[in-house]
């Protein structure tokens, strides 16, 4: 398969306009609009249930929007899902691996699905980059949570994605695993030329790693500012103010 996909001539990596999504009667994303420039790093913050994961899952083509326009590098996700999937790397906050396959086997399978020319050395190089080379031939079922998340990062990078979607990749990690994971994450985010959109509950880390911070509460975008122009306290304050308002409603 020809893996070199034509990038639509859009100056935007992500273009979301008036996005709405409901689960049954509950509206989880309300009129959400955002434009992300190529190469930008966006931190998407918000309390639990704010709609962050839903937005990321829509961008990852795992969910369809109810209404609104969603484009990734110019490709509408509804009609060009296959093209979009060739451009993204996705890390969820739960394991998306065959637990009975080894780390190396999972990566080799992903390479086959991306139709990449792939060798054992490529697998080793990738596992080395996330500090999992010693666990290459261990089944994912026996991995700790931190190891699974580092493997997920390796897989997300495998197709050299132009857009990295990281959904609370550090959630559920113990302090030791968190330190190690953060080191790998920072290294990858800083070295990568990909556009990065990540969700997190760690405001300080999010501000440090991103160019722009978005806060979403109750499915609405309530804060959108460059990271350098705001302080952690300002983000916290927007976060709390909107959460209180949302609760009052």
């Amino acid at each position: 398969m020809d893996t070199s996909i034509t990038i639509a001539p859009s100056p935007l990596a992500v273009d979301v306009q008036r996005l709405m999504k409901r689960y049954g009667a509950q509206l989880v994303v309300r009129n959400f609009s955002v434009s992300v420039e190529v190469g930008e790093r966006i931190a998407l913050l918000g309390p639990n249930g704010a709609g962050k994961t839903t937005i990321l899952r829509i961008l990852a083509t795992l969910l369809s929007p109810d209404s609104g326009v969603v484009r990734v590098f110019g490709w509408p996700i509804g009609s060009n899902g296959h093209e979009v999937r060739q451009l993204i790397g996705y890390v969820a906050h739960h394991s998306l691996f065959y637990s009975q396959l080894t780390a190396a086997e999972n990566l080799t399978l992903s390479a086959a699905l991306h139709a990449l020319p792939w060798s054992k050395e490529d697998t080793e190089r990738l596992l080395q980059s996330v500090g999992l080379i010693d666990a290459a031939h261990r089944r994912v079922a026996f991995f700790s949570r931190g190891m699974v998340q580092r493997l997920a990062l390796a897989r997300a990078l495998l197709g050299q994605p132009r857009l990295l979607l990281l959904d609370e990749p550090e959630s559920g990690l113990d302090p030791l695993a968190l330190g190690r994971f953060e080191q790998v994450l920072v290294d990858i985010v800083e070295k990568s030329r990909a556009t990065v959109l990540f969700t997190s509950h760690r405001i300080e880390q999010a501000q440090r790693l991103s160019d722009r911070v978005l806060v979403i509460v109750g499915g609405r975008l309530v804060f959108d500012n460059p990271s350098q122009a705001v302080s952690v306290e300002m983000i916290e304050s927007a976060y709390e103010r909107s959460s209180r308002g949302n609760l009052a409603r």
Partner: protein
Amino acid sequence: MATSHVDSPPALSTQMIAGAALQQWWALLQAEIRSAWRGRETPVTMVVFSLLIVLIFSFAFDLHPNPPGDVLSGVLWTAIIFGGMLGFQRAFPVAGDRGELEGLLVSPVNRSALLFAKVGINVILMCAMELIVLPIGALLFNAPLWKPLILASFFVGTLGFSTLGTLFSALSAEARARELLLPLLLLPISVPLIIASVEEVSQSLVAQPPALSHPWLQLACAYTGLFFFITLAVADNVFDR
């Protein structure tokens, strides 16, 4: 808001797309086989469950020796169908420690390749189950099951039932009560295939000499072909959420 013009995707010939899909299907099928072999919980459960059904029938009815062909065929197909459904229910795990489905869906995998890899592993698991259940059934009921036509009937029925079962398993993957929903959807639609398969095995067991034409086997083949093409036609939309 950027109103960008979108280029056409690079033109790929049908042959290239089919070739790439076949490679993806093979990679996925290998992963499924490895995963089932190492996990073992699904095949073991299927075999134990279907054996229990055969044993219960053998105790419940006086089927030994020389049971009527239609009864024996019905007993064996009941065991195979209900054992197979256990496999279908485990085919599309959506979360937890077996959440590989989403990992596959975010990759640029051909949806037909993904669905038919699951069909492939379900056919393999059901055939493996039959390799254990049928000899035991043959021993218990003293039945001459080792005739090419009977084995062909079991294979065609298994292929059709697996194809349809995998399709409905995918469709109900995110339903809240999927364990209840799957049999309710699958069994009524499979009725023509089940009747044809049961009748063919039944007639092959008693026919002396074997019949020259096999309308029930032809019907089972036709239904299997139909289910196959329906699955192929809807594969792209099965995973839309």
